[in-house]
């Protein structure tokens, strides 16, 4: 499908955060001095070097065990009079402390239980903050959540300039807040505006930015290989530098306080004025409300905690922080977001095993928006790619798109111009089938027309080697229909990308009954290399994602016909948590594509996919209102003003197809549930029919591919939290007014009947 969702939910990194362990449990570990496995330390020149390394994981997390050992070691250090300062460092390449075991607090039954755990953590960090000897945090790799809170409790921070070094407070993305002093220390450290930005967006901050913000004091250059590997030596070097600084701190040769510039002094002065601060809280609050529609409680709680700490003092601030964290941990929003996080992790694994051969050369057919996007994410990961089109104009446009995509990264400094050039050198733009004889995989992204797809299958199969996989990128055509033209259907698979390919994380892979397991494994491997979150679904018209979206769009068209304006429709859908309103979504997808899909799926599924009149869409296409790409759809595009204008031509068409809204099912909330219930019912039906292998992939596909409200966690988690019985009741009410489009599917009915049945445990 062709549309944009600008809502990024959770980044790739393992995002966790910390829960400080219970002091009672610490006693269990206090006697196990000799058997420490996660934390070790040695004293070098009166500097205690504390090394963290969780032997059971690729990243360090502040779990039970780690906590206990850390507390033990720190107490030992404080008890050792020879130690004048300490360095805290991870022995793991790429991870300082990525956070903590989410399970640990998920096991808590009440908010109070969670708050209690947090208070122990707050106390621990407070002790480090007030430590008689200075602590230097030496950061290489991810320093997130509780890891960052630990680091900012230390007196001094040194970070490597490695690309892997990222600092941040991602809690908000899990519906939580930085609960171990983060909301209290960050504003003092980086200032109110920057602290709000960090905590409310959860964004990752790179080392050099962190230095500029005052989040770290010193940067250390990552090293290349020497007498050891680059990673190993870089950590050693970081430790050497940190030890020197630790000594400097003791000898007062290094000062913690940075000289403040004039701007900083002015800002501090302004922030010292209570009315100014009040205005900031208000502005931030309004901004959050506008963006989150009040559906996400965590950002508001973060503001509250910061405000309490600054206006009422530390004690009140810490209390507010631990209490609010406890409350948030019990919300359905947080559960939904954490569910998505785990789902995303699960969808970034290859469950089909190692493919027999690695795809080293890929060819993409069609240099359109999709084809070029696929080529871009492929060369970006070092795979040589052919981009083939039939016309020079088409090819040039596609190559320019790839170049622009990479060049924009150089402007953001995430890529150097040299790296861009090296990556571009992997792309071969061409009009013929030269080189296809060496291709390991071909992905076709040509026009969505069965006869064209058949022609392409035959042409390509004539030139590719026997092992080569043929993947088809289609949003609605059944793969088995395309495979009908193939001589080797076991090598044929569907790979449904979402546009823009370089921004949208989801890849929907579709297998037919003939697709071999190795072909699937290979397609998943390629998708993972391209950085995608992958769901693997069965074949059928519209597969999973398109099939869920189509009934919702049909309902949206009906609402428009009933006189709900595009703007009102958009505000109803975004108000429910969709990042993009339904009318805007239709424009982004393309009215022509929507018409095409509606007609195709309508034929396949009959009246269940009815609702709005397809003729509305067809008429719009006829008038040239194809959506954003043609400048006009439901809205008019191209004007410079930010305010989108409704396309009066489209309004005229809607008037000519006007329907009367049945008053019993036309309240705002009714319209929202009409849209959502059709989406959800179709998703559940996909699971019932076996198109979907499990609810997790259903949730991930809906959220990452279609923008289903992340705060609801996906259609399946929504049914669980909202209640299948309540949903069925609503649908039956709608069914009375509109008929079988709202008939709940059997699986949904089963869940409604038995409340112990849940899609997620």
């Amino acid at each position, binding site marked *: 499908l062709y549309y944009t969702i600008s809502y990024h939910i959770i980044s790739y990194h393992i995002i966790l955060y910390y829960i400080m362990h219970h002091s009672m449990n610490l006693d269990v570990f206090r006697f196990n001095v000799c058997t420490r496995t996660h934390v070790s330390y040695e004293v070098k020149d009166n500097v205690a070097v504390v090394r963290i390394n969780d032997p059971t994981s690729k990243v360090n997390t502040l779990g039970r065990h780690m906590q206990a050992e850390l507390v033990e070691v720190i107490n030992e250090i404080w008890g050792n009079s020879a130690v004048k300062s300490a360095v805290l460092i991870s022995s793991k390449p790429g991870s300082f402390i990525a956070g903590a075991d989410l399970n640990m607090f998920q096991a808590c039954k009440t908010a109070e239980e969670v708050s209690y755990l947090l208070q122990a953590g707050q106390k621990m960090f407070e002790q480090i903050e007030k430590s008689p000897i200075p602590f230097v945090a030496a950061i290489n790799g991810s320093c997130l959540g509780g890891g960052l809170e630990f680091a900012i409790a230390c007196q001094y921070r040194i970070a490597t300039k490695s690309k892997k070094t990222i600092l941040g407070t991602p809690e908000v993305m899990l519906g939580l807040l930085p609960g171990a002093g983060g909301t209290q220390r960050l504003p003092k450290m980086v200032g109110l505006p920057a602290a709000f930005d960090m905590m409310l967006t959860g964004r990752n901050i790179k080392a050099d930015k962190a230095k500029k913000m005052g989040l770290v004091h010193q940067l250390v250059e990552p090293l290349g290989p*020497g007498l050891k590997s680059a990673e190993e030596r870089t950590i050693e070097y970081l430790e050497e*530098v940190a030890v020197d600084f630790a000594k400097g701190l003791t000898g007062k040769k290094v000062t913690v306080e940075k000289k403040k510039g004039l701007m900083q002094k002015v800002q501090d002065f302004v922030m010292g004025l209570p009315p100014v601060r009040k205005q900031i809280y208000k502005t931030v609050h309004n901004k959050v409300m506008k963006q989150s529609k009040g559906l996400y409680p965590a950002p508001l709680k973060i503001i509250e905690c910061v405000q309490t700490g600054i206006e009422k003092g530390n004690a009140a601030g810490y209390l507010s922080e631990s209490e609010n964290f406890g409350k948030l941990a019990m919300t359905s929003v947080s559960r939904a977001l954490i569910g998505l996080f785990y789902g995303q992790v699960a969808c970034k694994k290859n469950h089909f095993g190692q493919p027999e051969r690695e795809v080293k050369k890929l060819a993409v057919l069609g240099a359109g928006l999709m084809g070029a996007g696929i080529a871009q994410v492929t060369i970006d990961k070092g795979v040589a790619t052919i981009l083939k089109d039939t016309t020079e104009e088409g090819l040039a446009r596609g190559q320019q798109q790839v170049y622009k995509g990479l060049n924009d990264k150089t402007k953001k400094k995430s890529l150097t111009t040299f790296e861009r050039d090296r990556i571009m050198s992997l792309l071969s733009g061409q009009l013929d089938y030269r080189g296809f004889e060496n291709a390991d995989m071909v992905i076709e992204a040509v026009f969505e027309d069965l006869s064209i797809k058949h022609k392409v299958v035959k042409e390509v199969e004539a030139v590719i080697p026997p092992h080569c996989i043929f993947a088809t990128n289609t949003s609605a055509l059944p793969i088995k229909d395309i495979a009908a033209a193939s001589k080797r259907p076991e090598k044929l698979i569907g790979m449904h990308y979402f546009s823009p390919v370089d921004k949208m994380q989801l890849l929907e892979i579709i297998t037919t009954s003939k697709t071999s397991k190795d072909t699937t494994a290979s397609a998943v491997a390629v998708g993972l290399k391209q950085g995608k979150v992958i769901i693997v679904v069965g074949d059928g018209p519209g597969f999973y994602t398109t099939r869920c979206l189509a009934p919702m769009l049909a309902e949206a068209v009906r609402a428009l016909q009933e006189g709900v304006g595009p703007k009102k429709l958009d505000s109803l859908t975004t108000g429910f948590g969709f990042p993009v309103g339904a009318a805007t979504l239709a424009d982004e997808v393309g009215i022509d594509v929507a018409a095409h899909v509606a007609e195709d799926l309508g034929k396949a599924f009959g009246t269940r996919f009815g609702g709005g009149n397809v003729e509305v869409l067809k008429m719009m296409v006829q008038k040239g209102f194809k959506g954003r790409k043609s400048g006009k759809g439901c809205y008019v595009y191209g004007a410079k003003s930010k305010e989108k204008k409704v396309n009066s031509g489209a309004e005229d068409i809607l008037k000519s197809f006007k329907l009367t809204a049945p008053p019993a099912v036309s309240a705002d909330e009714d319209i929202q549930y009409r849209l959502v219930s059709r989406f959800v019912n179709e998703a559940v039906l996909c699971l019932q029919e076996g198109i979907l292998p499990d609810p997790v992939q259903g949730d991930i596909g809906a959220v990452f591919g279609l923008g289903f409200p992340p705060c609801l966690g996906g259609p399946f988690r929504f049914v669980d939290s909202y209640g299948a019985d309540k949903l069925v009741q609503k649908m039956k009410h709608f069914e009375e007014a509109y008929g079988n489009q709202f008939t709940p599917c059997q699986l949904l009915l089963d869940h409604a009947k038995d409340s112990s049945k849940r899609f997620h445990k």
Partner: protein
Amino acid sequence: YYTTLTSLCDNSTFRWTIKHSFSKKTLAKPGVKNIVLVDGVRTPFLQSGTTYADLMPHDLARAALQGLLNRTGLPKDAVDYIVYGTVIQEVKTSNVAREAALGAGFSDKTPAHTVTMACISSNQAMTTAVGLIAAGQCDAVVAGGVEFMSDVPIRHSRKMRKTMLSLNKAKTLGARLSLLGSIRLAHLSPELPAVAEFSTAETMGHSADRLAAAFGVSRLEQDEFALRSHTLAKKAQDGGMLSDVISFKVPGRDIVSKDNGIRPATMEQLAKLKPAFIKPHGTVTAANSSFLTDGASAVLIMSEEKALAMGYKPKAYLRDFVYVSQDPKDQLLLGPTYATPKVLEKSGLTLNDIDVFEFHEAFAGQIMANLKAMESDWFAQTYMGRKTKVGAPPMEKFNTWGGSLSLGHPFAATGCRLVTTVAHRLQKEGGQYGLVAACAAGGQGHAMVIEAYPQ
């Protein structure tokens, strides 16, 4: 097998060492022309901004070429071809080889071209000459290199250049005025050439500091090596060893006949300096780095037959050579490590066969890192695809007359200095084989084996 006695003069006392057998008596190959270094000279290497400050690069190059003519007594029309290296180009004399050759009074019938390969530009000039002779196209070629850091091309910004170029094409007064009106203050800020990699945007000093850290080279080791270089250079200068240096009457100034960057200091003085690139914890300082230098060098390379026919007594044979390249980010300055085993293998020699080592000293940290890399089996196996390490050269044979750190490093002139010094040291010290190795920007490197000419 035979044994030879070699004198080594690292300390003031002469030590006599019994040398083991050479792998080979000579590197002459049947059917391959012997190519010889007849002689080599250089202008004194001066810190930039000193006595040469008002010259242009071709003036310095001309001085070196004229010096070579004087030293060898070579008839000007006996030269078939001239190849010259330069790194930072003066745009007015982009083929500086030709401008300098004409100014030095060479025949206008002698073609000349300029090569560039960062710090190994004059090595490239010399091996180009070797290639021309080996291919039978020339018999006598002059090679050399020049660098002039007292003046470098500083440009207008790209936007300003664009406006100025459009101004040329603007036809009407209105068009010109509107172009002039488009100039903003920011457009006037100039573009300076940086000693930075284009590919990584990292300055060389910064990379050297990281390299030193990667190999665990301490500040002390670097300062000690820098001091060694200055001390040995001073001794060589005072002892009259640097006979490749010619006197040069600088127009408008005095006669210059000595390098002016040799400054043996004390360890305490060196320790006081702050790091120059990675602050505050870096280890590379101004004193343990080579300094910006003005200078030019030139050598006369001939086929052995031709040299003998013209009555010359050649100084050395130029034998096998290699160029290598590697990661410009993390291994920018490791050229010698990669090039040394490769050229030795090509020659069928081992490190023990080499009597004289001349390595280009870009930074003390870079030299120490290379020595450690050459001593490491792990590095050889992991990064060079070799079974074992090549080994580090013994210090008593290594850069015993000083190096780039102390004598100076005019980028494109250094290569000829290294080769000429090897020839002179082999003559003085009586060895058979010498090895030149150097690193260069771009992550490239070079090595050459030089064989003493029978005396």
